[in-house]
Structure formats: C-alpha cells, structure tokens
C-alpha cells in the first residue's frame, strides 16, 4: 500500500485553481463552479479510498496504526540536518482530516453553485475555494513542521481573499485585513517556535520530533524561561500560532469579523477546516506537548481552551447576527477540542481526551458546516444576517429548518446526534483530569444549548417578520448539501472512533459512562428549555432577563471590549507609539543628520565668504600670515622651536 494516488487529492484542486483563476473570466460562469465541484468530488472519493485502505487494509502494525510517507521529497535544504521536505504523510489524524476537509469542501462547492449564483466574481470564488482546499489538504498531510507552516500561511491568505471577497465593502476589507494580521501575529509565535525548536532539536521532521528517543523526549533540557525548557518555550510559541488560527482567546477577535465573507466560506474555512488547524497542530505534535517539561505546555493548552470556550459561549448568547453567534459558537467548540487535548495523556484510557478531541473535531466539522450552510440558506432567503429580520421561517424553508434543528441538537449534545458522543467524551476526559476545567465545560455545554436554540427559535419560530419577498426554500444544489450533512450529523456519532484515532494509535474502546452522559444531556436540555421559554414565542421575557444581568449583559454584547483593547494596542501603541515616532525620527533625526551635514558645509562656505574680499592688501596679508603659521608650525614639529620657551 503506497498511497501514491494521494497526490491527486492535491493536484486536482491545484489545477482547478490555476484553470479557473486564469481562464475563468473567459468562460461561462457555471463551468468554473461545476469543474471545482467535480474535482472536489473526485478528491473526496480519493480521500475515502485513502481512509478505507489506511484503516482497513493497512490496519494495525504491531498493534498500532503506522505512519506512512506516501511522498517525501526534499524541497529546500537549510542545513544538512534541517531539511524542508514536501510530502504526504498518512496517519490516523491526517486521514481523518483528509476526509473532513474534502467532504466539507465538496459540499461547500456544491452549495456555492447555488449560493453564489449570479455573483460577478463567480469564477474567482471557486478559484479561491480550490486554492484554499489544496492548501488545507497539503497542510494536513504535511510531513514536517515547516511544510505545515508553508501551507498554514497559504490557508491564511486564501482565508484573507475569501473574507475580502466582497472587496468593495469596506467592512469586508477590514475584516479580511484583521483576520490576516491577527493570525499573522500568531504565526510570528509559530515561526519563532519552529525556529527555536528546529535549532535545538536539529530537525523539522514530525516523526523525529515526536519519537520517544527523539531530541525532544529523550532528554530533559534545563529550564530557561518560567520553568519551561527551551523546548517548552518553543512548543508554547507554536501553540500560540495554533491558537491564532483556531481563534483562541485572546487571539479570537478576527473570527467574528471574518463572517463578512460569503457564508459558504464561513462554513468551510471558519467552521470546519481552517480554524481547527490549531487543534490539528497540537494533535500532530501531541507526544511532544505531552512529553516536554512533563506536559506543562498542555496546561496552557487546556486553560486556553477552557477560557475560550466559556468566553465565546457567553458572548454568543447576546449576539443578534446569526453568523456571529455561529462564529462564537465555533470558537467555543474549538475551545472544547483544545481543552480535550490539554487534559489528555498518551496511553490507553489516559489518551481519552485526544481521541475525544479528534472525534469532536470530526463531528463538529459536520454539524457546524451544516449550521453555517443552513444559516446561509436563511440569509440567502431573507437577505439579512440579523435575527430581528427573521422569524417563523419553518413554514417557508422546511428542509433548512429540519437540518438546522438536527445540527442544533447535535451541538447541544442531545443523543443520538453526533455531538453528544464527542462532547460527552470530552467532559469525561476533563472530569478525570481537572474538576475546575470540567465545571467550566459543563457550564458551557448548557450555555451552548441555550444560545443555539435561541437562534433556532429566533429564526424558525418566534414572531413572523413581514418579508419583502416571500422567502422560499433554496435550490437543490444548496439543500442537497444540507441533507447530506444532516444525515452525517445523525450517524457519525456511532462510529467507534477509538478504533481509528487515538493518542497512542492503539485500539481503544469507548464506553459511555451513564452518569456523565446523563449529566451532560441534562444540562443541554435545560439550556434548550430556557431558550424555549424565552424565545419560542415573541415575548418581553428575554429582554427582562438580559436586563437582569445589567452591566454584564452589555459587556458580553460588546464582546468584552476585546476589539477596543486591540484597537488600543494597534492604533494607540503601534501606530501612535511606534510608527509615528519612527516616521518623525526618520525625517528629523536620521535624515536631518544627513541634511545637517549639507547645511553645515554651506554655512562654513558662507562664513568664509569675507575672506575673499577682493582687496589685494588683504590677500598679501593672508599670504604672509599663512606662510608664517606654516613656518612656525614646521619649526615646532621639527623641534627647532619650542613654544613653551
């Protein structure tokens, strides 16, 4: 089994990107869409083939799932040891990601054919989608940390392009810019982390980095910074990169704004794939995170995840823009995944968190994509993002309604929908590790159910808005993906995930603890119930409740002023505090020095002007004086006369 064919998963979207990008303008718009969709479908099938062959035909070698390098070519040699390979690495998580990415990408492609219908930049949109897909796919199959970085940046830029797709809208432009710069800032940490790690470990290669006798795990490095060894520092920095991409607190501020992009983009990039890259990165380096400095960095991961998920959930309850609610929800769910990784160990049952995290990544991709696509369908119908413009849509859009409901149930952790299984495992893992973390997550589970059903009721029930155009169900290209995803959401929870992806790659059987399951379902149902009471019917009850929270509500609604804090840092400190002084110094001091030289020369020149008076007697005087000075000087230099007497 050499998996050589996997290269086509990457090549196909690349070709589509080039083809539609260069020639799309000259073709009928539809063609770009269908080509893109077809190529993604093929890629998806190839990904399934990969999964099938990897999980069922390769199976286990010595009890664990092997790592297979389908390709590994030297791309750039920095030094003899630091080699930047490009390749395709096949292991459980990369196969998982291949499946997730291709599936969601395919469905989003399909969906976009309808959603983007009639848009001027139709071909561009598909071109960018392909660019994103290929970057993301190459990211997940990366064989070394530099390859990840390479495509990490590329997904960043495709995200930038897609967020800024409606580039004549200033808000979209600034959202795109913000997304890029914030993640870029995080990537700075990532890059420094890579550089530190690679220098001290002497390799970029994942296999070497995470192997037990590798440079990271075999020895204990002395602490250099806050009790962390240099490897710990490097891994923390790498995690910063991951946190930026995955919109973890406090680097999350770009994600809600990123909703300026077309909704399918939000579904693909900002819900299912790119934003989980950070989780994937931690998972990819998990043995290192786990082993270095006794897992100290993992605490950072866990707490970041926990705080983010709580933080996002609180904000999500107050937002009116449904896409923003979903965005915060995404952030919250990714917080879960991070947390799960953070509380995980390596072997057997200890590795539950890892498995749960990946599982949640998988299920979340499906139901969150479904939510976004559903929301897109709604937005498509009512031409607004705001909840106040919606209401009672269940009658007009039955498919959207049902699928959306399924997704809401899934995210709320109601069995038998997929979210229940994965979230339950996460809670179980957290419970075993750290009760505080568990408590947070437990609360968040309830909040999640509440805010999801808040928007659910807000959109499909509640007061019926007077619509200008009667909303209608979306075309087949849009509703078909919804259905597919809904089916997936219902069933994928039953996959025995421990058989496929575990921290130590050995077989692990999930068992559901009835206590834990009951508790988590219970809190979810409470959340739903509260939402039902508050939002099912039009009432003033909700406003009353929000008033009850007073200042707290306002803070949450204003997203805890994180944007303003950033604004302060970016504008006040960087622009006014650094860039402006730099510009001033450059103009006045550095350049002023150079101009000053010229000025001094000229002034000297002016001062000398009178010397050349035109009077011959004075010339003679200077002549004689000069001669005398020279004579005395020379005599003095030769020691013939001595002015000291």
């Amino acid at each position: 089994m050499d998996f050589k064919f996997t290269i086509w998963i990457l090549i196909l979207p690349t070709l589509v990107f080039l083809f539609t990008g260069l020639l799309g303008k000259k073709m009928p718009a539809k063609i770009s869409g269908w080509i893109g969709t077809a190529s993604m479908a093929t890629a998806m099938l190839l990904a399934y083939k990969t999964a099938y062959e990897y999980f069922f035909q390769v199976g286990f070698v010595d009890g664990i799932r092997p790592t297979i390098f389908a390709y590994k070519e030297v791309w750039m040699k920095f030094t003899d040891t630091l080699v930047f390979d490009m390749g395709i690495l096949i292991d459980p998580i990369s196969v998982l990601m291949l499946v997730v990415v291709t599936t969601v990408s395919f469905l989003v492609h399909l969906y976009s054919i309808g959603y983007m219908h009639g848009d001027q930049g139709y071909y561009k949109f598909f071109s960018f989608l392909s660019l994103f897909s290929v970057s993301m796919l190459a990211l997940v199959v990366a064989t070394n940390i530099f390859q990840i970085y390479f495509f990490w940046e590329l997904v960043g830029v495709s995200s930038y392009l897609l967020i800024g797709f409606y580039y004549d809208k200033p808000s979209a432009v600034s959202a795109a810019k913000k997304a890029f710069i914030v993640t870029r800032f995080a990537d700075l940490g990532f890059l420094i982390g890579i550089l530190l790690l690679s220098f001290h470990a002497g390799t970029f290669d994942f296999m070497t980095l995470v192997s037990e006798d590798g440079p990271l795990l075999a020895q204990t490095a002395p602490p250099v910074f806050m009790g962390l060894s240099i490897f710990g520092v490097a891994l923390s920095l790498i995690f910063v990169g991951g946190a930026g991409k995955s919109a973890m607190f406090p680097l999350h501020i770009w994600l809600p704004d990123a909703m300026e992009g077309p909704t399918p983009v939000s579904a693909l990039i900002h819900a299912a794939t790119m934003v989980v890259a950070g989780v994937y990165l931690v998972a990819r380096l998990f043995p290192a995170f786990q082993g270095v400095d006794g897992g100290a960095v993992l605490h950072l991961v866990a707490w970041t995840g926990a705080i983010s998920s709580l933080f996002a959930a609180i904000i999500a309850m107050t937002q009116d823009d449904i896409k923003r609610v979903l965005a915060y929800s995404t952030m919250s769910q990714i917080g879960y995944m991070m947390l799960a990784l953070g509380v995980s160990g390596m072997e057997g049952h200890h590795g539950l968190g890892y498995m749960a995290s990946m599982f949640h990544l998988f299920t979340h991709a499906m139901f969150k994509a479904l939510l976004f696509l559903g929301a897109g369908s709604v937005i498509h119908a009512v031409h607004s993002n705001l909840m106040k413009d919606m209401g009672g849509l269940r009658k007009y859009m039955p498919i959207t309604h049902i699928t959306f409901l399924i997704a809401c149930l899934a995210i709320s952790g109601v069995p038998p929908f997929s979210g229940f299984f994965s979230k339950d495992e996460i809670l179980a893992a957290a419970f075993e590790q750290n009760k505080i973390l568990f408590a947070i997550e437990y609360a968040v589970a309830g909040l999640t159910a509440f805010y999801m059903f808040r928007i659910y009721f807000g959109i499909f029930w509640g007061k019926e808005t007077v619509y200008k155009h009667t909303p209608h169900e979306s075309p087949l290209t849009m509703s078909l993906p919804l259905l597919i995803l809904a089916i997936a959401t219902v069933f994928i929870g039953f996959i025995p995930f421990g058989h496929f992806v575990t921290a130590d790659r050995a077989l692990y059987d999930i068992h559901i603890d009835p206590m834990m399951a009951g508790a988590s379902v219970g809190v979810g149902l409470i959340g739903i119930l509260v939402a039902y009471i508050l939002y099912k019917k039009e009432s003033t009850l909700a406003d009353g409740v929000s008033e009850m929270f007073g200042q707290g509500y306002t803070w949450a609604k204003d997203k805890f002023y994180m944007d303003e804090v950033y604004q302060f840092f970016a504008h006040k400190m960087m622009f006014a505090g650094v860039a402006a002084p730099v510009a001033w110094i450059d103009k006045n001091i550095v350049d002023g020095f150079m101009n000053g030289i010229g000025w001094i020369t000229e002034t000297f020149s002016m001062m000398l002007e009178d010397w050349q008076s035109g009077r011959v007697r004075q010339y003679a005087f200077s002549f004689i004086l000069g001669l005398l000075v020279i004579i005395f000087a020379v005599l003095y230099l030769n020691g013939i006369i001595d002015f000291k007497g």
Partner: protein
Amino acid sequence: MDILSLLVVIPMLTVFILFFVKDMQMVRIIAAAGMFVETIVTFFVTRNYVASRGSGDTSEFLMTKDFTWFESLNIHYFVGVDGIAVAMLLLTAIVLLAGIFISWNIEDLTREFYISLIILGTGVFGFFISLDLFTMFLFYEVAVIPMYLLIGIWGTGPKEYAAMKLTLMLMGASAMLLVAILGIYYFSGQTFNMQEIAHAHMPIVAQRFFFPMAFVGFGVLGALFPFHTWSPDGHASAPTAVSMLHAGVLMKLGTYGAFRVAMYLMPDAANEMSTFFMGLAAIGVIYGAFGAIRQTDLKYINAYSSVSHLGLIFFGMMALNKTAYTGAVLQMISHGLMTAVFFALIGMLYGRTHTRDVRKMGGLLKVLPFIAVVYMIIGMASLGLPGLSGFVAEMHIFVGAFQNPDTIHRIFSILAVSAIVVTAVYILRVVGMMLMGPIKHQEFEDLPKAVWYEKVGALLVLLPVMAIGLAPNWLVSLIQDSLAPIVEQLSHSGY
C-alpha cells in the same frame, strides 16, 4: 572576446549606436533589442556555468579572464563568475529588460533616457563580473552616477533635491569605499585581485579599520540603517524604470559588495563586528517596516519596505553561517524582483491616476484587474507568502539566524522575525485602501487597462518570483555551491 566581457560590451555598443539614432521608436527598439541580446547572453552564461559546474569544475570562479591593465600598479581587468554572481546577473538582465519595456512611453529625451539607463546597466553588469577591486569600484561608480540624470531629468516631485541627495550620499559612501579599497590593497600585498586578497589574510588591525568602511560604504547603497534616507526621497522622485533598476538591482550592488568585498576579504573583522552590524540590520528591518506603515505615498511605502527587506539581507550576512548567507543572496534576488515589479506597477498606476497617494485611490481591483492582481501577488511575496520567492529567502535567513543560540543574537533575530507582522500590516493596508474598497473617484471608473509592454514588463519579473518560490532548489544549489569558499573564509578566521 570572452563571454563575460560581452556582457559589458553589448550595452556599450548599444549606447554607442543609440547616439546616432534620431527616431524615437527606433531608439526604443534598439534599446530593447540590445538588452534582449544581453539577456540571452546572460542565460548563455548561466547555462555555461551550470554545465561546467556539472562537469566537475570546482574552481571558485569560472569563465575567468585576466587581462593586465596597469601593470605597475597590479591593476587587472579580471572577470569571472560564481553562482552568486550568475544569479545576480540573471536578476539584472531580467529587471533591465523589463525596465526598458516599462519606459516605453517616455517621450521627453527618449534617447538620452535609454542611454543613461543602459549605461547604468553596464555598470551593474561590470560590477557583478569583476573580480578585481579596481574594476569593481569603477563599475560601481559608473552604475551610480547616471542616477543623477535619470532622476533629475525624468523624475517627478522634488527631483532635483532627491537626485542630489541620492548622488551625494552614494558617492560619499563610495568615497569611503575608496579608502577601504586602498587599505585592502596595501595591507594584502598590493593586489586588487579578490582571490589573492582573500588568501593574503590582512592583519587584524587593518581589518578593524577598513572593514567598517567597506561595509558601510557598500551598506549605504544597500540602504543600511541609518544611512537609508536617500532611498525614500530618491525612489519617490525617480521615474518608474529607474526606481525598478535602482531598488531592484543597484541596491544589490551594495549588499553584494558588502558581502563579497567587506566580509569575504576581511573575515576576522567581520566576525568581530558581526553583532554590532547585525543589531543595526535588525533595527533597520523593523524600523523600515514601521516607517512604511505611516506613509501614504506608494513609492515611499515601497522605499521603506526596501529598507526593511534589505536590512534582512545584511542581517542574514551577519548571522555568519551558510544558511543565512544563502538566504541573504536569495533575498537579494527575491527583493530585486519584487521591488522591481512594485515600482513598475506604481508607475503604471501613477500614469493612470496621476496620484501615488493611497488615500485617494480605491477599488482599483475592479477597474485595473491586471495591475491590481499583480500588485497583490507581489505584495504577498513581499510579506513572505509561501510559494513566492520572499518566503524562501526569508526562511533561509531566519533559520540561519537562529543558528546562533546566544541571547543577543536571539533578541536580534526575534526582532527581525517580528517584521513579518509589520510587513503584513503595511502591505495589507495598501491593498485594502488602494485596490479594494469602493471606487473613490468618478474618473477612476474608466481607466485604461494595462497595455502590452506593461504586461510584458511586469510578467517578465513576476514569473521568476513565482518560479523561485515554487522550486527554489536549483537557485539555492546554484548559490550554495559558490558559498563554500566564503563560508570557509569566514568561519576559519582567527576568532
């Protein structure tokens, strides 16, 4: 006639012919033809070089030609190339040819413009093939001085001031360089031959004295902080092709010279002072980037961006290891190409909108798709997007810089690396303000699209940017093959 000298002779012949041509169109065609032949010869040189390296020729410089010039002073016309020089020659040929096309619409004193431009090119070609310090210095000045006329006559804005400032600062630097060259000559046994000097091992005291002179002397042309102030004013006033050539190629003379002459010939002092100059370079990197944030004139933005990117080159050199050297040379090429495209595009935009103020433009992506898209791609290259040349170069420099584990190097390195964020800020700011957003002025609605010579010019430079970014290995190995003696020289110094 050996093939390398042909690189100098062809432009000289072109200039000579141009003197006698009256018709403007004819002038353009002859200039383009001459530079086209030049490009072909450059490719031929590259091919030759790669072929003889492939056949196992391991001498440091290939295609050497030694002709005694001033015998009693031991001045030779001594030419030869190694991989680095070949790469720089390729860069020069491409940018120069693109520059010829970009300036197709110059109407005022066309002939003189092309003559000056090609004289400049002659200097640059001569500089890169020279292995004798005297000829190198000679060509260096030949390359610098036409800038005065080019900016002064065909420039815009406060061109007289800018031209004078640029020329004086550069010539002042070259004056310093002259002292250094003389010092090198006398302290290495009266020779200008670089190979001999390298083996002569100048006494450390002399190195300490002359290394800073040589390094800064070349550094000024490479816009080394804090000697960069000629560059924003100069670039802002220069006509398009001149900005292209100047930022793209001419400034590389500075960096190449600092590497080849200052560091290679005076390795001990280079080692001793590396930390200081590395700090200077790191400050320059971040300083240039921050400087670019506040600017509103496109050319100023790009000029400060150049300060930042060229700072990285010096930074890479001063990291003192092979990876970083490779990165520095790559960055020379990468930045040369990128900035050439930048200036070409800015010229095109200015020609249409008659402004370079980003605040006044907007939504150009819609009206000028070709220019805007190329601008975005190059912008991305400039902020180090993988798949484009900037990434390859920067990563080499960063990886190389991180090979020095002591604290001070770490601090400088992190400072330099952090420029990637600031770069993103100013690039995206421009892209956001200028290319995206709504169209700000009615008259921008129907600007003329790019014409053929503009497309040729821009693509000529853009394609290598992508080629290097996607398949860096051939270029990397071309450079690294030739780095061995330099690395050897710098690492085996007494310190």
